[in-house]
């Protein structure tokens, strides 16, 4: 059914005007006609002569069919079974199976038999669908009619003779773009349009080169510049403008498939590309501005690590390879690299040879894998960036783990597996690996490298390349950082003099100490001590959260029969407190277990992991204080539990069996004892002993001073650690008062006196300790650097070896020393914080929060200090030197370097042509070769082949200078022509080339999405000129005003800005040529968006400036200049003047500005 509206395009309208507009439509008609005549031939009973004529007439269609389905194997590219089908003569000659055709008889023709067979084993072509019935009819009719060729039945040309496979050269007698274009125009008798007017020219150049329209001032300067070279001057100015790099980076980013990280952005989970990839984008901008050669850019993108191994800036270029990274499947990474390196740099569709030999170009399937082999050793690493923290190692894919967004450092490639095999597989499916063929070695298709000049040579890398911690910039930055820390510590110490003695503080402390001692002694004597045994106990409280304290016991011998563990427990609040023989403190597994839970004593029976109540106690009746004994019976894998109350010695449990589950902390580092207070509980623990069968004390802990400081968290003291299963709210301090609240007041007074003393003394001590730590840290780092440098540069001689040993020993000693001093300084800092918190008035709202924080950090610092002390006391020899950073392979295969050298070689026929075609495309809105990624035999021929060659040679011989090409193009008459004329004679004369293939005029083009947004902001003076940096989110693209280049690009939802969605922002999966649509939603965006509203208001304010009473005409003129870079025409002025009268001045001015921003002339480059 044809929709009614379609019928308007019926035959009466098919005049020449339309057919020239729609040449493609003509094509359909032509095809239809051919098919119709073929059908006629089939059914016709006409005489033989007529039949023959018909056969000749249908041969072009037959040949087109054979070309499409058969030539790939039976033409000039390949001759399967020695058969060619590209001429009738060749068909008659036939191949190893004899002649392919029998003139006049389709049914006996081999060709027809094979293509029409119903047996898939016999039927040709072997791949793809069988020929359609209509195609078979065509062929049959032609064969039956005598299989007559047309007069010139030429064979397919030799593939090697294809134009794009010949090195480009200059055609003699031509020395400019205009020479080539004029020659064609003259030959076609076409008169080119005159040059565009100066204002159009400047706007065209500005948008082409920097992606922004000229300001009214720039426009007026240019119009008033009488110099004959005013325009070349302007071009040079624009090429020197750093915004040139931003503009053209976006073009090349399309071709090189720039994408910020993606995968599962909503999670987020990084699967593709990398979060630091923006450094590659900044490298592109920089390289273009510096006019680094196109050859150098390609070399660095493919192999900066091999061409410039020490150069971080260049290493960012390998983002080109990382962009294709796919965490889940390395084959996919390789597939994308091969496909897009072929397309982007060479205009070759290597990807077609992934599954089968190329159908058009001499690229065998093996060549595909040989090309992949250049990249096979690749992997990615992330190096620390000077002045930033270390990002750590690049995260590998692990099923079930998110790949996090790492913003630090630089990502770059390196050859990780020099011997990684490249396997040949079939059907494009890596599961069909042909391992028996052996691995494929890197290489180029023979037709492009006949002399086989480019063989990979392994590259010995310099130290900073394989050992990135040793990069000079990083070392310098680290050294500066250490010096700054040291200087800060010096300044602090200078400003913190040592306090003199303060007798008042001393005597206050003495008095408070005495008062507390007296109170404690009195309490003990009256049977109500502040602690369970001795002066202090461990006090766990969990008014909210949960506190678990644990202690590993690797220092005790294996638990033997008859070993006993015992301790005292006092419940202050009755909820749930348990003691565990922990099976694995990291995983949170339990071996044995005794819980005091709301008057129940609960354990696990041997062999069980289920709670069983084995006894009860009466908390409210006064049963709060217990002694617990566990007698170990490892032979039966159990222990026997005895609990009795104190002081009455009521036995609650007597030798009850409890699960031991193989608990043996001597040999298992993650086994431990642990004490767990759950929400609502408070308890004291003390007097903990493990005693061997012979009565020997294996372990004991009494929580007494000096190992445990009263009032401090026990964590970090004498081996106690807090469990990862604790939750905030619980605390575990060492207390001298908890069992007797009456002692609290003298204790607090003592603590306050101590804090006052500390507060006076600690600042100086802390400052001194910090300086000592800083000095030691610098010394340790220098020693480490020295030892590491020697290691990296040393050979294997004994002298060097012993020197290295001694350097190592020094470095280790200094490192341990620095760790200890740092820990001690941290501890002092924490104590100072605690003292200052304690000195706050009791009603200070922050006090308890500060106390809590300070107590926690003391615990951490104490734990670190204890470790450092332990390390310091053990022998230096047991510590090996920590390297400065990771080390990577010391050689690179040189494969990618060889590939890049070939790609950028003067003799490579494709690279420069492909590049010149892109440059041309962006200046003329149409390329010379319309298939920009396919310069092969199936691609489109160039409209101006000699011109393309000349540009390619100019590019190469100017040192691959892209700016040189811009100058050649912009200063040509061809580029400077007007894009339209109202002159009917000129229009009529050009009717034969409505698509402007011969360049008799300039093409118009629509601003790209980025240029639309940037220009809107720019004319309003709102565009933020900040250059470079991490990508910005598209959700902010309407409210923040950086250049569009800097907003994220990725192929998921949210990967384009709201304006980009509508104005054809690039598809980051594949955007060699952008589409440029005109849809109603664009109009809505340009009239309704907040952004345009903001911009319009700003433009209005700008125009009015300090003259709010500007006349309507002056306002209109200025608005046209600002937005459209031209003066209004008379009729436009009249129209706008009339418009301004229809509403209030404010509303109508704003509306007028908006209308101009929606004007076709704003969004169009004329």
């Amino acid at each position, binding site marked *: 059914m044809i*929709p009614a509206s379609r019928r308007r395009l019926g035959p009466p309208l098919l005049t020449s005007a339309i057919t020239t507009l729609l040449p493609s439509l003509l094509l359909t008609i032509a095809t239809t006609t051919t098919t119709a005549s073929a059908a006629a031939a089939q059914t016709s009973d006409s005489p033989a002569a007529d039949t023959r004529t018909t056969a000749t007439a249908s041969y072009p269609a037959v040949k087109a069919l054979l070309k499409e389905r058969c030539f790939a194997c039976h033409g000039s590219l390949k001759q399967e079974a020695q058969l060619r089908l590209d001429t009738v003569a060749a068909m008659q000659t036939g191949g190893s199976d004899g002649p392919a055709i029998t003139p006049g008889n389709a049914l006996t023709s081999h060709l027809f038999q094979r293509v029409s067979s119903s047996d898939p084993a016999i039927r040709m072509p072997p791949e793809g669908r069988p020929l359609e019935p209509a195609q078979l009819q065509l062929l049959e009719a032609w064969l039956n009619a005598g299989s007559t060729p047309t007069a010139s039945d030429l064979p397919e040309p030799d593939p090697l003779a294809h134009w794009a496979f010949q090195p480009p050269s200059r055609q003699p007698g031509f020395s400019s773009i205009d020479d080539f274009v004029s020659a064609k125009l003259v030959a076609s008798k076409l008169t080119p349009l005159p040059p565009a007017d100066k204002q159009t020219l400047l706007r065209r150049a500005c948008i082409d080169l920097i992606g922004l329209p000229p300001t009214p001032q720039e426009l007026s300067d240019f119009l008033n510049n009488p110099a004959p070279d005013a325009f070349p001057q302007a071009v040079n100015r624009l090429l020197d403008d750093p915004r040139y790099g931003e503009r053209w980076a976006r073009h090349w980013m399309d071709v090189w498939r720039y994408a910020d990280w993606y995968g599962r952005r909503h999670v987020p989970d990084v699967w593709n590309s990398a979060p630091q990839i923006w450094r590659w984008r900044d490298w592109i901008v920089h390289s273009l501005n510096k006019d680094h050669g196109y050859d150098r850019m390609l070399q660095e993108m493919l192999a900066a690590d091999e061409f410039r191994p020490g150069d971080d800036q260049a290493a960012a270029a390998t983002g080109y390879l990382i962009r294709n990274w796919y965490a*889940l499947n390395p084959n996919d990474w390789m597939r994308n690299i091969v496909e897009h390196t072929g397309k982007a740099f060479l205009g070759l569709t290597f990807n077609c040879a992934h599954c089968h030999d190329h159908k058009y170009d001499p690229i065998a399937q093996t060549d595909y894998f040989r090309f992949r082999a250049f990249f096979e050793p690749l992997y990615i690493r992330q190096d620390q960036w000077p002045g930033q923290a270390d990002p750590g190692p690049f995260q590998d894919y692990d099923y079930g783990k998110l790949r996090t967004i790492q913003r630090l450092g630089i990502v770059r490639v390196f050859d990780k597996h020099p011997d990684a095999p490249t396997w040949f597989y079939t059907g494009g499916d890596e599961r069909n690996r042909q391992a028996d063929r052996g691995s494929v070695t890197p290489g180029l298709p023979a037709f492009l490298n006949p002399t086989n000049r480019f063989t990979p040579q392994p590259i010995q890398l310099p130290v900073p390349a394989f050992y990135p911690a040793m990069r000079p910039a990083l070392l310098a930055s680290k050294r500066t950082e250490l010096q700054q820390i040291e200087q800060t510590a010096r300044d602090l110490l200078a400003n913190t003099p040592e306090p003199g003695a303060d007798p008042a503080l001393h005597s206050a402390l003495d008095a408070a100490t005495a008062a507390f001692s007296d109170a404690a002694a009195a309490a003990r004597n009256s049977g109500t001590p502040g602690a369970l045994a001795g002066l202090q106990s461990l006090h766990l409280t969990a008014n909210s959260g949960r506190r678990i304290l644990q202690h590993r016991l690797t220092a005790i011998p294996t638990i033997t029969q008859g070993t006993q563990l015992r301790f005292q427990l006092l419940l202050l609040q009755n909820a749930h407190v348990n003691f565990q023989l922990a099976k694995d403190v990291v995983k949170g597994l339990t071996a044995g277990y005794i819980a005091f839970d709301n008057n129940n004593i609960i354990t696990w029976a041997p062999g069980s992991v289920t709670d069983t109540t084995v006894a009860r106690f009466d908390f409210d009746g006064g049963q709060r204080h217990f002694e617990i004994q566990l007698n170990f019976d490892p032979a039966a894998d159990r222990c026997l539990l005895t609990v009795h109350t104190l002081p009455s010695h009521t036995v609650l449990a007597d030798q009850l069996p409890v699960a031991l589950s193989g608990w043996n902390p001597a040999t298992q580092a993650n086994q431990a004892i642990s004490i767990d207070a759950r929400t609502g509980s408070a308890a004291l623990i003390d007097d903990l002993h493990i005693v061997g069968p012979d009565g020997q004390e294996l372990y004991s802990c009494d929580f007494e001073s000096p190992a445990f400081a009263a009032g401090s968290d026990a964590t970090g003291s004498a081996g106690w650690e807090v469990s990862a299963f604790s939750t905030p709210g619980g605390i575990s301090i060492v207390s001298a008062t908890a069992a007797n609240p009456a002692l609290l007041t003298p204790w607090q007074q003592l603590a306050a006196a101590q804090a006052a003393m500390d507060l006076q003394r600690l600042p100086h001590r802390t400052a001194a300790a910090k300086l000592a730590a800083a000095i030691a840290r610098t010394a340790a780092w220098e020693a480490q650097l020295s030892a590491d440098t020697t290691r990296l540069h040393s050979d294997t001689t004994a002298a060097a070896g012993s020197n290295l040993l001694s350097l190592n020993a020094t470095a280790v000693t200094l490192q341990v020393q620095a760790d200890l001093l740092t820990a001690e300084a941290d501890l002092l800092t924490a104590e100072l914080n605690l003292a200052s918190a304690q000195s706050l008035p009791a009603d200070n709202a922050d006090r308890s929060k500060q106390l809590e924080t300070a107590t926690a950090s003391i615990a951490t610092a104490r734990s670190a200090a204890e470790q450092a002390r332990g390390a310091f006391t053990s022998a230096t020899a047991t510590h090996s030197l920590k390297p400065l950073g990771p080390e990577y392979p010391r050689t690179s295969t040189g494969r990618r370097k060889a590939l890049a050298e070939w790609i950028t070689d003067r003799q490579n026929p494709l690279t420069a042509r492909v590049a010149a075609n892109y440059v041309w495309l962006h200046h003329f809105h149409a390329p010379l070769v319309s298939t920009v990624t396919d310069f092969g035999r199936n691609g489109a021929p160039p409209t101006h082949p000699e011109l393309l060659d000349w540009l390619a040679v100019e590019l190469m011989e100017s040192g691959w200078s892209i700016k040189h090409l811009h100058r050649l193009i912009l200063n040509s008459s061809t580029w400077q022509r007007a894009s339209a004329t109202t002159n009917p004679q000129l*229009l009529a004369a050009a009717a034969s080339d409505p698509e402007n293939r011969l360049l008799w005029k300039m093409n118009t083009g629509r601003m790209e999405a980025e240029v639309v947004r940037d220009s809107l902001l720019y004319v309003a003076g709102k565009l933020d000129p900040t250059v470079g940096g991490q990508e910005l989110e598209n959700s902010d693209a309407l409210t923040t005003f950086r250049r569009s280049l800097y907003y994220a690009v990725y192929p998921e939802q949210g990967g384009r800005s709201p304006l980009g969605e509508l104005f054809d922002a690039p598809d980051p999966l594949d955007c060699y040529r952008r589409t440029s649509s005109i849809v109603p939603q664009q*109009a809505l965006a340009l009239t309704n968006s907040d952004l345009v509203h903001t911009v319009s208001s700003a433009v209005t304010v700008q125009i009015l400036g300090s003259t709010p009473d500007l006349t309507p005409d002056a306002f209109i003129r200025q608005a046209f200049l600002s937005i459209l870079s031209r003066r209004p025409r008379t009729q436009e002025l009249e129209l706008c003047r009339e418009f301004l009268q229809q509403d209030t001045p404010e509303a109508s001015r704003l509306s007028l500005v908006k209308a101009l921003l929606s004007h076709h002339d704003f969004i169009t480059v004329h």
Partner: protein
Amino acid sequence: MTSQPPPSTCFRRRALLSDLGMGFTGLALGAMLAEDGMASETEPVAKSNSPLPPAGQQHHTAQADSVIWIFLSGGYSHIETFDPKPALNKYAGLTFDKTPFENPVNSPLHKKRFRSVAAEEINVRDVYPIIYPMQVGWRPRGDSGIEMTDWWPHLAQQVDELCFVRNMWTTDNDHAAENQIHTGRHRLDEQQPSIGAWAHYGLGTLNENLPKFVVLGGPTRSDTRLSIDSLYLGPQHAGVPIALDPANPLPFGKRQAQQTFQQQQREYELIGRLNQLSAVDYPTDQKLLARIRAYELAFRMQVAVPSAIDFTQETQHTRQLYGLDQDNTKIAGERLLAARRLVEQGVRFIQVFPSPYGVWDSHQKLKDNHTRLCATVDLPVAGLIRDLRQRGLLNRTLVVFCTEFGRTPGLEQRSGGVDGRDHHPNGFTIWMAGAGTKRGYVHGATDELGYHALGEGHYVTDLHATTLHLLGLDNRQLHFPGRKRLEIDDGSVIHDVLT
């Protein structure tokens, strides 16, 4: 030739064109634009043997004017919905090799239809061999006696309108299969435009004031974009997500608060007139004409879209039919009712996501999930079918109801699972209704265990080919110049389901 702007406040297009003296060129282009509502500047890379974009020219007589494509994200169990398997109850708890049937895991079909996204050396997804019984009862329904499970009480009453395809298969074993059923390609292959984009590309519009390819309820996650994307066809063919908020349904679809309707109308008129004046200097500029046209359309679209989704014009009876009065059916009901209204307005392709992303995924607690989820869509979908039929729309509207894959007949044991099924690309069920499909019909089957789609089965692009066929398009001719489509992209029409 005169360049005076037309005096009236409305655009007089024809007068304008003749005023500007554009003759045939302008008219022809105008006619083209009128149909398409837009134009593309990039001329396709024309090659002698490339077919042309049909742009409204159907290849054969269409039976459907519009498609409502309902997609349930996460993968519903074919077994517990539309393909009951008594053998699973009979052999529950046994491994596949203990049944009288051929062990389906050993079939060559397994490798053909099961491809892991992650490289094999990184991750091999488990195959679960212990048979898990059906979690719901089933019985024959309607005059056709087609078996459905008991979770579809309302849809069961419409079963005689439905046409099931029980031997679908796909290859992606993870949720990128959601893209695959829309694009036809496995995640590791080069991505292709979605089915909606092809329909959009291939067909002229029936109402130029509305987008032609509308998306309701999606995409809700960043990585589902591919399911509505148009890629190389150009962004003008991508699905346009519409929010069911008449106040602001379309991006930028609402004029600035400080501007009145009349003010904006004057502004659009000024834009039009200014562009017409430029046309004097650029008499052959097609893009300029396209832009003038785009602004006219934009102004109308701004009014048409909110009205298309304004439910206040619907009766109480209709609202109940779609379950708008019940909390658990309201969301799906609103999206499906909006879909019907858009069909009435001539929108070509409406892609509806009635459930949130991924919710049908039932690795665990399948019974709970499916009981709850079926109840959210059963009534509204049944209501849609009834409503379309009552209004005489069903015979020109194709309804497709699908998901990304089925679920394993075996019990998923990962992470100690005891009550769910894993992803299963090897066989699943979809159904269609209306517009030239058979009524009350079942095409194809899976094996006794519900494991493999029997026979050649139907890869997802067969569903594309069938859908496009009903729209009057031939997938094989619907190519984009310069882009190679493979045989798997074309698929084959499932002729057996057609009347």
